[in-house]
């Protein structure tokens, strides 16, 4: 049976793993390669490396760490951040990444998703979506350039519409980051993820809000997501991955041993 995936996300800034609260105040957690190796050994099913500086800055970002990770890691990994063109994506994939994830550049140029699909195939095209629940309007809205709070902006897209659009353009997986929950560890946004699941025929990964093991159980059982992504609970050792996986197996959730 296909297992649900536990996915540590490593936010990368200037070659270091960092974590901020609600996208702010980034603090350094550690070096990329040893952390990645540690997670792989602990039973992470996949890793996501998100270069949070890349989409916001105009400068060319050093991605040589992708090769260093590919050399030591024997589980799949995805690289996100700063991929604006087919050529950018090609370089990352050649360095050994299994998937590339696009977010802000896809909002600026939705055709990018189509070109990535046509060049590399659907299986390696992930679209990340930063979705914010606006309490005043009661709507989920897609935000852009969230790596830099001075440039973060609301787009015209409602989340459900963008989810449909990116699938039509050839996305092979969607990571839905629920911004209201990010970094506060009160649980995933089950309501939103459940709603999006209904119109998502490709794998859907939940992001934002994990604080306790039960949050993972809930999001798998109640929102039927294929994977759950988390950062701080893993980086800070709040939830050890082996214990989390043992707990989820006990709850009869399909989890890789």
């Amino acid at each position: 049976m296909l297992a649900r995936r536990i996915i540590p996300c490593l936010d990368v800034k200037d070659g270091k793993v960092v974590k901020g609260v609600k996208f702010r105040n980034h603090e350094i957690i550690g070096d990329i390669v040893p952390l990645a190796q540690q997670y792989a050994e602990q039973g992470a099913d996949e890793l996501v490396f998100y270069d949070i500086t890349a989409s916001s800055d105009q400068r060319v970002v050093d991605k040589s760490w992708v090769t260093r990770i590919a050399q030591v890691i024997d589980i799949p990994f995805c690289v996100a951040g700063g991929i604006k063109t087919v050529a950018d994506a090609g370089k990352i994939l050649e360095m050994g990444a299994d998937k590339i994830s696009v977010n802000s550049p896809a909002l600026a140029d939705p055709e990018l998703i189509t070109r990535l699909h046509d060049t590399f195939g659907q299986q390696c095209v992930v679209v990340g979506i930063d979705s914010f629940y606006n309490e005043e309007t009661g709507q989920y809205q897609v935000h852009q350039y969230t790596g830099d709070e001075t440039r973060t902006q609301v787009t015209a897209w409602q989340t459900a519409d963008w989810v449909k659009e990116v699938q039509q353009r050839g996305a092979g997986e969607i990571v839905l980051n629920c911004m209201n929950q990010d970094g506060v560890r009160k649980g995933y946004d089950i309501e939103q993820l459940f709603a999006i699941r209904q119109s998502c025929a490709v794998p859907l990964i939940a992001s934002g809000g994990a604080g306790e093991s039960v949050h993972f159980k809930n999001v798998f059982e109640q929102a039927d997501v294929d994977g759950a992504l988390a950062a701080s609970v893993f980086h800070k050792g709040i939830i050890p991955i082996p214990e989390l996986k043992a707990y989820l197996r006990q709850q009869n959730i399909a989890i890789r041993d």
Partner: protein
Amino acid sequence: MAAQQIVIVNTGCANISSVKFAVERLGIPVAVSDDLNTIKKADKVFLPGVGSANAAMDSIHKKQLVSCIQELTQPVLGICLGMQLMVEKSAESLNDSTPCLGLIPGQVKRMQVDELRLPHMGWNTVTPIGDAPLFKGIDSGSYFYFVHSFAVALSEFTMASCQYAMDFSAGIHKDNFFGVQFHPERSSDAGSQLLKNFIDL
């Protein structure tokens, strides 16, 4: 054993470095090549691939590697799309179908998975059939990493099966040709054992 020549066929696809790194993690040197003589002389040959069957076959034709691969007599391991290229034809095509290398009887068809998601992406359990040499020392039901939307049906050439709404070939084998639908280079300990088994053939 004297050092083997291990060659990864440079199909022009994107997962070549991850296959190369996985073999190197076993402490075994490996070359990436599209040179006919280098491929012919190798002790073991990997045929990697991601992307679409038509694009990969185009690339193999352009590099004039079709008959070279068909005439190989040493063990050859196709990975993911590389495995799909080993059968007769693929429904993944801009036209009706893409003719493949015809090394193993079979066809690649789009998976029928009802309400489940495609691509079939993630870790799934694999059941080896009989005493398949590539699965020596690997427990039945071990997890391997898959990413694909097309698959080869079960047949007499199936060496391992997997289930995702339907049963399909996780691995196929005929003579010196072996193929796996999953990515051993990304399948943790079970994957590296399988790669080691192939190299030890």
